[in-house]
């Protein structure tokens, strides 16, 4: 009951005119970057980050959140119409979505992904209302030992389901931790790895690194191997799926929501969620051989899943202060700029922000459904902008975004360097996600480690003798061991 009252209060905040406008701007921008391949929600949030700092914390969070889940809606459009995933999470949608479009069923495919996303998103927000306060209450009892072990667990999890070589993904974690130590040591005031430069004394900014790793490197990949886009000239009609379509996708939507919710809460698992949802449907289906030829279940399930996942990621961020993905990490960064400490105390100290944000997500989901179906023809038009004009624009945005953070050219150079690094990482199949997560969690990890060791007078065994902490450690060890013995599920196996 307490939550319900708080939620109602949250709605009264979210329904204020300014917050509705911020929510609308966020949703529209999110759909736009979701539709455009080559600029993802991470880069978009990074771009608007400096600007969002001009408005109040609630408005800023509402807008940034809109970009984030809006992109999950928009990503399906390109997958279905162009066979090019607008987002990494829409890769699986291509398989059946594009085939449906080729059969002249682009309308129902787009329709079911919008409805599925809405259903998945709304159910997940209910889960968020239920679980986030519970989790925050439990986490209030956590000490530095538990937080240290939890961080270690997050880092091993993010490498667990990464694609390609496990060792390569694992290597990114210590690398990220080393990068995180650059700058002033908060405990002793010593400068680490700064080489006397002013820019490095503040540490590396997360935003320039993310823009480099995800924005610039993506441009370089696309410039280096131009994709020939064949546009499907199918007429889009019948956006409302037929009764038979609903019957077929009823259970896939439910299961997609569940998979997305569970994996969205776990740090670093989000990207693989739609793959698992698709694989699950294929296994449960009576006609698995038809998957890949344009069945509606193959669109409904992953599209529902990626939306559920993107909203479930808010649970660990809001209740524990642990980011489940790169974008959640930027949200943490934004909160810190406002002087709000993320973590279990957020709910108690800033209930307006917590409940206002959650209720705005209800509204945002509604807006996306109502706005997006009629706007699909418009998004299709935007897709016709050739990449020749798109990539200079993306480069300009990245330069502006990283410069306007602090008005420091050093941040732009950081972005440039990480653009090159990110390109090389993509070429040689090193995942960027573990690196960014380690970079963000690094200061948290270090701080908790030192505090824990101060309390225990330098005894490392405390991490294993305190029960909750030991539990996290055992899970991490199990993940590491099973990955090294190569018994982890192969994620991209379903792609072919």
């Amino acid at each position, binding site marked *: 009951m307490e939550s319900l009252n708080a939620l109602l209060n949250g709605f009264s905040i979210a329904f204020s005119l300014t917050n509705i406008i911020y929510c609308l701007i966020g949703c529209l921008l999110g759909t736009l970057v979701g539709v455009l391949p080559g600029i993802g929600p991470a880069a978009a949030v990074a771009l608007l980050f400096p600007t969002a700092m001009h408005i109040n914390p609630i408005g800023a969070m509402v807008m940034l959140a809109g970009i984030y889940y809006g992109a999950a809606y928009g990503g399906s459009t390109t997958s279905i119409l162009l066979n090019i995933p607008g987002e990494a999470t829409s890769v699986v949608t291509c398989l059946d979505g594009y085939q449906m479009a080729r059969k002249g069923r682009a309308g129902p495919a787009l329709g079911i992904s919008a409805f599925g996303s809405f259903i998945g998103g709304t159910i997940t927000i209910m889960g968020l209302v239920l679980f986030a306060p519970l989790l925050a209450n439990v986490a209030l009892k956590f000490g530095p030992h538990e937080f240290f072990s939890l961080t270690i667990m997050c880092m091993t999890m993010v490498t667990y389901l990464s694609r390609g070589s496990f060792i390569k993904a694992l*290597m990114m974690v210590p690398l990220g931790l080393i990068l995180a130590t650059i700058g002033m040591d908060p405990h002793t005031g010593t400068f680490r790895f700064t080489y006397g430069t002013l820019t490095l004394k503040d540490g590396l900014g997360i935003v320039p690194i993310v823009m480099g790793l995800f924005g610039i490197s993506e441009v370089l990949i696309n410039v*280096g191997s131009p994709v020939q886009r064949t546009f499907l000239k199918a007429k889009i009609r019948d956006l409302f799926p037929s009764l038979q379509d609903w019957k077929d996708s009823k259970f896939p939507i439910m299961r997609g929501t569940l998979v997305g919710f569970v994996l969205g809460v776990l740090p670093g698992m989000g990207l693989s969620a739609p793959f698992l949802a698709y694989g699950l449907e294929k296994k449960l289906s009576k006609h698995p051989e038809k998957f890949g030829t344009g069945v509606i279940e193959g669109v409904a399930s992953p599209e529902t899943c990626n939306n559920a996942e993107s909203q479930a990621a808010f649970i660990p961020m809001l209740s524990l202060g642990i980011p489940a993905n790169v974008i959640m990490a930027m949200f943490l960064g934004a909160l810190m700029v406002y002087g709000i400490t993320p973590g279990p105390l957020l709910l108690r100290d800033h209930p307006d922000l917590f409940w206002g944000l959650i209720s705005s997500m209800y509204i945002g989901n509604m807006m996306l459904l109502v706005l997006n179906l009629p706007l699909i023809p418009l998004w299709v038009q935007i897709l016709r902008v050739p990449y020749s004009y798109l990539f*200079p624009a993306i480069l300009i945005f990245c330069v502006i975004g990283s410069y*306007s953070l602090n008005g420091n050219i050093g941040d732009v150079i950081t972005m440039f360097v990480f653009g090159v690094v990110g390109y090389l990482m993509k070429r040689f199949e090193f995942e960027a996600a573990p690196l960014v997560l380690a970079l963000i969690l690094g200061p948290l990890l270090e701080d908790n*480690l030192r505090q824990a060791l101060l309390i225990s007078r330098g005894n490392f065994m405390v991490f294993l003798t305190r029960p909750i902490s030991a539990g996290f450690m055992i899970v991490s060890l199990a993940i590491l061991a099973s990955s090294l013995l190569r018994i982890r599920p192969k994620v991209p196996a379903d792609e072919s």
Partner: protein
Amino acid sequence: MQKPGPGFISFWSGVILGILTIMMVIQSIWFDKADRAEEKKEKTQWRAIFLSLGALFVSILIFEHLGFIISTLLLVGFLLKCIEKKGWVVTILASLLMTLASYYIFKVLLEAELPKGIFGF
């Protein structure tokens, strides 16, 4: 070990990174021979990549000296002319349009901080 100092995380991360690197080298020598055979066949256009990187780097260098408008104009113009091989008219029009539009959106509407440069705009 009893009292971790400022170098603690960096040192042990470095040790772990070293161990993982050795593991990767061993793995690639003994196990992954089959993987190396299937190199990507598609040709990478290195010229386009190096030109864009070079252009971006130069524009970052001149960014604070010549200001946002001039450096962005030059960057977009160069990319369109030298990589995309557009005609002069298209290049000039498109780069003007993109520069002014982004200036208007970010500087005027969003009040972002952008360098003025020696010419004062």
